[in-house]
């Protein structure tokens, strides 16, 4: 059955154009991921509009390639210049840079590539096997069950995303508010339009994410005074690549690879957790399972393998809740959902029932992306390293220009571009005062689904809120969410008391 579905997907997706788009996505994603200051989220936000008028079997694999390349690319700068390209590669610095300083930059880069491939393959297999089964279960969910599930997801995002709990909840509320601007889902009447026709249609996710994640980061970078080259040649510790790391050598480190793959996939599937938590968890776990744990932090290849395996396993994991429930596993998948919706594919269990060939086609596309990552990683490291040397004075104006064009492409409207600039300024101030941005985007994506399921549940129960506790699935999710709130609050309180105690 699975094989038949995959073959049907293969028939739909296989073409030279698709393969080329996947390669392009992987290369662009790797370049963007490798450059500190640019992130996979930013790349996704900017390039989603490029796919609007593409065939879904080309546009979506392109975006998936971008996701995978962006996830892997940050390890290059982490190893070579002691600066992770993205937050999810932060743990790779711990051993990657010391390896480069010891003349083993090439060995570190190779190990990272093969670890990424294994983690990526594992995550994709988990997605292919788990998602359809979960979708079958989810088809039996009532609107009340979905309400409970989304409520639990939002609490996960707010509690586990790190930083201030209060600010994360406020950021989620802001995301909810933005999605409430526009026509009411049931009555169709405009909300919060303030008499402006332009606000009557509401905000689109694409300008919101471009502004929040791309333009705001550009403003933060500008604030630093970005007039110098990204790094100087003299900073490259050793030109020699040292000994190589062969592809088969990765199998000697299965005691690190397997737990890291499992951690990455599982944590990726939990909403709001994402790759940064997964890679640090895997790095910490490596201290227990590594062959030579005493070498971790001093240039151990296991210290590079663990976080990068987990980091790339997150990709498949994060797509599980996104495709099955329409709940993004992390902020990149929240932006990726915009690409799906633009193609007329609203992720939900019904998609597995009504258009399974498209989903299985995308699963095949993900395997194409894994192969593309392998080829790109083997042959294009010098190109990616060169990307680190592009002057910010050239790169950043290009990124800003792409932000404008991408926002305009959504609805051919300057209102979207203006909105993007406003969101960018808002995002900049939010970052300045310590407000996390991912909950805003996830609140925006989930707010609408939560509201419609809630209101339908209330109509079904004729206004009786007991429906959320009498339905067992809904009650379980709400109970779990409450436990998470209590547990996280107590943990944070204990942490702040310990900090005061230490002082």
């Amino acid at each position: 059955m699975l094989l038949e579905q995959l073959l049907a997907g293969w028939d739909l997706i296989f073409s030279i154009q698709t393969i080329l788009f996947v390669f392009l996505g992987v290369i662009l994603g790797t370049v963007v991921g490798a450059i500190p200051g640019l992130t996979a989220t930013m790349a996704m936000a900017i390039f989603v509009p490029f796919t609007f008028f593409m065939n879904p079997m080309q546009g979506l694999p392109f975006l998936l390639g971008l996701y995978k390349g962006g996830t892997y690319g940050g390890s290059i700068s982490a190893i070579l210049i002691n600066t992770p390209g993205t937050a999810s590669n932060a743990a790779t610095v711990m051993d990657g840079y010391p390896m480069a300083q010891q003349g083993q930059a090439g060995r570190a880069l190779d190990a990272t590539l093969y670890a990424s491939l294994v983690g990526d393959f594992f995550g994709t297999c988990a997605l292919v096997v788990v998602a359809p089964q979960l979708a079958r279960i989810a088809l039996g969910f009532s609107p009340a069950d979905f309400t409970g599930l989304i409520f639990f997801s939002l609490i996960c995002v707010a509690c586990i995303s790190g930083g201030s709990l209060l600010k994360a909840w406020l950021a989620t509320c802001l995301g909810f508010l933005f999605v409430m601007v526009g026509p009411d889902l049931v009555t169709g009447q405009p909300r919060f339009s303030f008499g402006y026709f332009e606000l009557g249609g509401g905000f689109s996710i694409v300008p919101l994410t471009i502004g929040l994640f791309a333009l705001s980061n550009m403003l933060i970078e500008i604030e630093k005074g970005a007039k110098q080259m990204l790094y100087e040649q003299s900073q490259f510790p050793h030109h020699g690549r040292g000994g190589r790391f062969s592809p088969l050598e990765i199998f000697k480190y299965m005691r690190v690879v397997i737990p890291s793959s499992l951690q990455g996939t599982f944590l990726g599937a939990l909403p709001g957790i994402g790759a940064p938590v997964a890679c640090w968890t895997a790095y910490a776990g490596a201290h227990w399972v590594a062959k030579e744990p005493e070498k971790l932090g001093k240039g151990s290849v296991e210290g590079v393998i663990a976080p990068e395996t987990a980091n790339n396993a997150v990709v498949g994991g994060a797509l599980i809740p996104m495709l099955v429930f329409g709940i993004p596993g992390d902020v990149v998948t929240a932006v990726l959902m915009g690409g799906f919706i633009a193609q007329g594919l609203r992720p939900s269990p019904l998609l597995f029932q009504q258009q399974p060939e498209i989903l299985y086609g995308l699963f095949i596309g993900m395997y194409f992306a894994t192969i593309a990552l392998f080829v790109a990683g083997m042959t294009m490291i010098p190109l990616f390293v060169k990307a680190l040397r592009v002057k910010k004075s050239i790169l950043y104006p290009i990124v800003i220009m792409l932000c404008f064009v991408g926002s305009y492409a959504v609805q051919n409207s300057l209102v979207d571009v203006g909105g993007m600039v406003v969101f960018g300024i808002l995002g900049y101030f939010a970052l300045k005062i310590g407000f996390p941005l991912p909950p805003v985007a996830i609140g925006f994506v989930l707010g609408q689904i939560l509201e419609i399921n809630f209101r339908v549940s209330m109509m079904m129960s004729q206004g009786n809120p007991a429906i959320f506790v009498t339905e067992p699935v809904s009650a379980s999710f709400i109970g779990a969410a409450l436990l998470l709130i209590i547990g996280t609050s107590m943990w944070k309180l204990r942490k702040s008391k310990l900090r005061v105690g230490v002082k």
Partner: protein
Amino acid sequence: MKLFIKVFSWLRNRGSTREKVAALVLLGFWLTVYFAIPSQVPVAAIGKEAPLAYSARFFPYVITILAIILSFVLLIQSLTRTPSAMEGGKGILGVQQVRRIAPVIVIAFVYLFLFGLLGFIVSAILCLIALLGYYGLSFRKEWKVAIPLVILFPLLIYYVFKLTLYVPLPAGILRMLGLF
């Protein structure tokens, strides 16, 4: 009045200024949203008015009330915690920082204005010149990079969007001149 000044001075000297300002701004914002709901969220007159729980106003009220409570708690926290205990953030917005980002924001809004007037290509060329110049690219020394970038990049984007992605970007004044 004296009591008010005393309380104000006491509040002013406690906690983190950045956090206090953020909490007050948020509180003001959410209170404004709350009072705007009756006028901005119409309830459809379809026969008997729907109970609040499934009306269009329910979620806006829930979210704004929750946000008001959270903003208030944030304000209390900002007064009772030391600045170092408040997590996150990259520092207060200073004059130097405003000077660095303000030109980019001004360029962005000027670009928006020119886009409608002159079309994508001309406005993009002007915007790129402004941004590259602001970023310190010397057009005199690096003209071999600057000129192709400023002219070719907008043209490339125009054709990629128009021919490959079928997104028409307005040619504006260039079409009027018969060049596009």
